[in-house]
């Protein structure tokens, strides 16, 4: 089972142009080549090993023979031949003869169709659905997606998720074994399953994004790389499924958050609400890209949770936020995803739109819910609303509860400051 290396570590010492070409091909073509090869060989691990062989071959032959006109096609053909070699050597595979015959047939036939754009698109889409299959553990879905489609090495993924490389390696190997043994299919789900399965894929991508976005500690730089990977996956999904409103919605949401990445925390590492952020540190180009994606999503006339969240984020980024509309979007969002966080945010938005009393009315049922008894943000929001309603004693009590429940020093200091300022 080969551990992977990044393209850079392979190519040091090569002539510049050929080395650049391999690095570029690794970054731009690997997911597509791997996706196609998995379809051809029907085995994740074998395909990965063969693709790695093909890149090693490119490093040897491109400086000598020149960079091929179509690097992706060259890599696919080479990887398929390496897979044939590997299968011939490996006698432990149960249906080896059938697979070999199929591969050899493809090798003789498919030269003409190999670079057809549509089949490459389909292959990557199939691969996403395999990596995000609901029968795999969520942490394995995330790791496999990053590994196969994002092109991160196992070591980089382990680092970003703060686990050891052997632990992450085991997780990935186990997932691949399950894909092979349980025959997790390599295909785009049927129409009736597609919406649910696509939701699962988008959830994995957003999970990757949030993992990076919530990183504020010492590992921040490494983990923020996950935001970039998630945005890249969002862009890929947009290319593969351009008619889905939620695909555009998620892309918009990630871009609108990512545009404010540099401004989201202060020097102490404290999270800043959108209104508190230094707008000069926002990435204007990214915001425009996000707004354009949101527009596309809205035009598809199929509002979902990501589109609504993106719309709310966009509205909150206005200098004078339209709280009435934000509150309405939150009410729509509560119907789709009735989680405590969404309900809390709706109460806060209504508190701004219709006054603190209206917000407090919506907060009341949440305060009675025993499941949320230790949910710190609930008490911080309660305190803010009580303060604005003029109930200073109530606000002080709520701040004290929030301070007791706070696990984060920076956050606690901020809450104590607000309590003193009452």
């Amino acid at each position: 089972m080969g551990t992977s290396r990044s393209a850079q570590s392979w190519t040091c010492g090569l002539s510049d142009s050929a080395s650049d070409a391999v690095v570029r091909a690794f970054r731009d073509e690997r997911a597509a080549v791997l996706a196609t090869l998995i379809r051809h060989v029907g085995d994740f691990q074998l395909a990965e090993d063969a693709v790695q062989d093909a890149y090693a071959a490119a490093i040897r032959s491109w400086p000598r023979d020149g960079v091929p006109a179509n690097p992706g096609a060259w890599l696919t053909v080479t990887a398929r031949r390496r897979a044939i070699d590997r299968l011939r050597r490996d006698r432990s595979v149960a249906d080896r003869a059938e697979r070999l015959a199929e591969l050899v047939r493809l090798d003789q036939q498919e030269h003409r169709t190999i670079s057809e754009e549509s089949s490459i698109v389909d292959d990557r889409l199939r691969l996403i659905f395999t990596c995000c299959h609901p029968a795999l553990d969520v942490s394995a879905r995330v790791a496999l997606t990053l590994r196969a489609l994002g092109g991160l090495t196992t070591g980089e993924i382990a680092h970003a998720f703060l686990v050891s490389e052997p632990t992450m390696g085991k997780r990935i190997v186990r997932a691949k074994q399950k894909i092979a043994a349980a025959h997790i299919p390599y295909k785009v789900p049927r129409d009736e399953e597609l919406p649910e399965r696509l939701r699962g894929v988008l959830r994995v991508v957003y999970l990757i994004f949030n993992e990076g976005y919530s990183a504020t500690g010492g590992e921040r730089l490494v983990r923020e790389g996950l935001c970039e990977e998630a945005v890249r996956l969002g862009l890929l999904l947009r290319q593969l499924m351009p008619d889905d409103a939620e695909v555009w919605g998620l892309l918009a949401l990630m871009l609108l958050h990512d545009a404010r990445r540099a401004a989201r925390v202060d020097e102490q590492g404290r999270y800043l609400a959108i209104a508190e952020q230094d707008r000069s540190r926002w990435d204007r180009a990214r915001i425009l890209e996000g707004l354009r994606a949101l527009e596309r999503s809205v035009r598809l006339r199929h509002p979902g949770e990501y589109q609504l969240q993106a719309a709310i984020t966009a509205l909150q980024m206005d200098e004078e936020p339209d709280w009435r509309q934000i509150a309405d979007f939150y009410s729509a969002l509560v119907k789709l995803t009735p989680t405590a966080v969404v309900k809390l945010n709706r109460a806060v938005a209504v508190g701004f739109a219709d006054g603190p009393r209206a917000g407090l009315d919506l907060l009341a049922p949440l305060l009675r819910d025993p499941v949320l008894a230790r949910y710190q943000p609930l008490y911080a929001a309660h305190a803010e609303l009580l303060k604005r309603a003029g109930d200073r004693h109530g606000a002080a009590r709520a701040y004290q509860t929030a301070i007791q429940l706070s696990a984060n020093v920076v956050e606690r200091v901020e809450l104590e400051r607000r309590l003193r300022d009452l």
Partner: protein
Amino acid sequence: MSQYMLLLYTTEEEEAADRTAEMPMWLELNRSLEESGLLTATGRLHLSTTATTVSAISGEVELTDGPFAITKEVLVGYYVIEAETLDQAVGVARRIPLIRYGHVEVRPVMDLRLE
């Protein structure tokens, strides 16, 4: 004659251990059962890490990675089915009425045909 189901249990460590040395004993057992006409079906399962558990106790059908492991529930039945993919097998599991009040573990059976 009645039918009996013999359920084989062991630990994860033993499950993953190499069993080559005892293969003759398994083969001998299976051969003699077959010859005496007593064997209905037998199979070796893939590792428990390849299992998927299906349940709708929460109201919605949920898949979980890994074997079923709550000891309060007891084994009440089984199906051995043919399916092209895990999705097909899970599709059958979804149709089993028990998932509303129990769990169905879907486990691939090893293909022991030799090349």
